[in-house]
């Protein structure tokens, strides 16, 4: 009989199996469920001491919420692979809420999947969800981490002796430039003579180049460094080895530099994760465009290291309190870029929510480098 099992039967069997695979997905799409499966997708390793770890920490905390199962997949490239990963989570595992955590997942990948699976909610980190242009079951969340980079700068401004700071950046894109400028402005709020040396490595994860960049900054006399790369691990370790100060980014890296770690700008994604999970559980409408800073608890500072002087702590804490109350403006005129051109005229204050800030394409006065 087995010889009768021909190609047609095989196709039928495959089709049946494929259909069966979609059933759990259909079952979990009801509203106001008491059980839910949440999928989280990372572009790098979950333990990178950086961008992905910050997301994974929130995912780990989300696992503890009642009725929630979190399924995770790491090192998913920004190709058709991420589309297939989302579809697998939905069809094979029954996920009804997906956190797509890498910038490049948004367009076209997540948008395509959101159109294909209209009952699943897709939350993306960093993208610009636009009403009318993108599907209503898709959305983006991001945090004003430049507030923390500003505070990093305030602390750095207090401890620097050479008055030269360093910033190691992956790519000269708006999100990165905003951090760099905030860090510089924070330091200049302590001493306007402070300058920042920028080094762009060219990609998000280039450990060798990041170490070279840190070393060359130290050789140029820089004595406090921070960065915007996916994993600050190598930068933090190199600074510690060379005996200079470092401010962390993305996650808490204090364990890597017990002597030189001043403080750091960290994400606190649990705020966003638990909000979306609760909304999905109760059937509340999906919040498509979510942004927040220190005030909303989207970002936080690492605890101060032991090298931070009390005066610095006092100043930084005072600014932080004002930021949380919404009374402090980081980007306000008159502000010049490093070519002398006025980028924010006198009398203009840009609030953190201003979309103009998400298109930043200049380096403020005092930054050496070019975009």
């Amino acid at each position, binding site marked *: 009989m087995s010889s009768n099992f021909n190609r047609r039967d095989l196709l039928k069997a*495959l*089709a049946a199996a*494929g259909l069966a*695979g979609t059933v759990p997905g259909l079952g979990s799409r009801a509203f106001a469920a008491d059980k839910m499966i949440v999928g989280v997708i990372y572009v790098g390793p979950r333990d990178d001491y950086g961008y992905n770890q910050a997301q994974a920490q929130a995912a780990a905390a989300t696992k503890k919420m009642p009725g929630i199962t979190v399924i995770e997949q790491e090192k998913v490239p920004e*190709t*058709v692979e991420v589309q297939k990963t989302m579809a697998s989570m939905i069809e094979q595992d029954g996920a009804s809420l997906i956190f797509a955590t890498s910038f490049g997942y948004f367009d076209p990948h997540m948008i395509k999947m959101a159109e294909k699976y209209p009952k699943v909610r897709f939350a993306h980190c960093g993208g610009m969800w636009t009403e009318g242009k993108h599907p209503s079951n898709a959305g983006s969340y991001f945090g004003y981490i430049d507030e923390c980079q500003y505070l990093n700068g305030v602390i750095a401004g207090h401890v620097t002796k050479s008055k030269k700071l360093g910033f190691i950046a992956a790519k000269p894109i708006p999100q990165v430039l905003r951090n760099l400028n905030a860090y510089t402005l924070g330091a200049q709020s302590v001493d306007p003579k402070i300058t920042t040396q920028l080094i762009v490595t060219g990609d998000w994860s280039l450990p060798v180049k990041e170490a070279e960049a840190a070393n060359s900054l130290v050789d140029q006399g820089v004595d406090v460094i921070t960065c915007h790369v996916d994993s600050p691990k190598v930068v933090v370790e190199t600074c510690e080895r060379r005996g200079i100060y470092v401010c962390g980014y993305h996650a808490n890296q204090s364990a890597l530099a017990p002597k030189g770690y001043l403080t750091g700008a960290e994400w606190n994604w649990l705020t966003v994760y638990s909000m979306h999970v609760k909304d999905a559980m109760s059937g509340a409408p999906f919040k498509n465009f979510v942004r927040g800073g220190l005030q909303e608890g989207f970002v936080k500072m690492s605890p101060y290291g032991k090298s931070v002087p009390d005066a610095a702590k006092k100043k930084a804490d005072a600014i932080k309190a004002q930021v949380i109350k919404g009374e402090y403006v980081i980007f306000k005129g008159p502000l010049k870029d490093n070519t002398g051109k006025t980028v924010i005229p006198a009398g203009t204050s840009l609030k953190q929510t201003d979309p103009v800030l*998400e298109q930043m394409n200049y380096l403020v006065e005092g930054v050496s480098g070019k975009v």
Partner: protein
Amino acid sequence: MAFPDAGRLGRAMEALAIPLGALLGSMVLFGLFVAMLGKNPLEVYGLMFQGAFGSSFAWQNSLVRAAPLILTALCVALPAQAGLMIIGAEGALVLGGLAAAVAGHALGGLPPFMVKLAMAGFAILAGGVWISLAGGLRQYRGVNETISSLLLTYIAIALFNHLVEGVLRDPGSLNKPATYPIGEANMLGSFFGFDVHWGLGFGIVFCVAMYVMVKHTTLGFSLRIVGGNARAARLAGLPVSKLVLAACFLGGGAAGLAGMAEVAAVHGAANASLIAGYGYTGILAAFIARQNPLAILPVAVLLGGISASGGMLQRRLDMPDATVLVLQGMAFMLVLAAETLYGRFRIFEPKPVEEKYDREVTVGTVVAMEKDAMHNLALTTVASSRQSR
């Protein structure tokens, strides 16, 4: 004349059985490895099958991952026919993708079919020329092509980033620099209604065409002579350098076409997402397929399946992403190690000639065996020349 055929059949069986045995061996080793991690190997195998080939969804998932690998594997396998070890498919892929994106945007006003054709043409040209550089460096300057093709990849990626983040950048692409989009009308659709893009179709057609070219045309025969012994080929009057460059161009063109498929079927523009390592996994595919263009098809599907099943293992068993890379590594090592087993198994060898056959057949067999001996000699020459480099 039954014996030469029997010999060929035996050889084909051998060529099938040895890599399959090696793959089976790597699965067993992988089972031991996951057992050491405290997981049940049978559960792991079951999930892997489910994730890779267990449903039509899983099949499509595997095939879509296989599509670029087929073309990048050809970038290794075609130059290999002429005795070159090219590992620079990644560079040809990204430049092919860039050429396609630029052509797609620049020719946007033409009918979509023409635009697609032009994108494919420019992608093949860009990838082909890039890999030909490695071939040319070897033929005319004596530079090792393995090293030069690898280094050319770094240059290609740097050039790609420089152009995409510089002059070719669409100012609208804020946080992820990309070229101008090629437009929805110029995108490639799905492959016969499957949720798999046309890159798969390109791969299948390219593989079959190249198999026919290599095995059944004079050009292919000349290539293989060059690959077997370039000096002998030169003495026989073959245009060795031209053949080497042609093989490199075809291989690079295949990888460039993979880049075009990524741009025209997936991303809609060229951006850093093109640099996804397909060129490197293609090397693995070509080696497991023993540089046979036709064998690349099932091997790429298998590798696509392994990659698809990796997600399943992560999600269901919370195993790290590197788990399936361990399996890939084991498979690669065992397949390479199994190269030494060819000709060691009696069962695949032609049977000794029996008395009742007349002299003519015996002569035929001897000739066939001598041909095999020559073939083996050629292989040994390639192997030793590779070692000595």
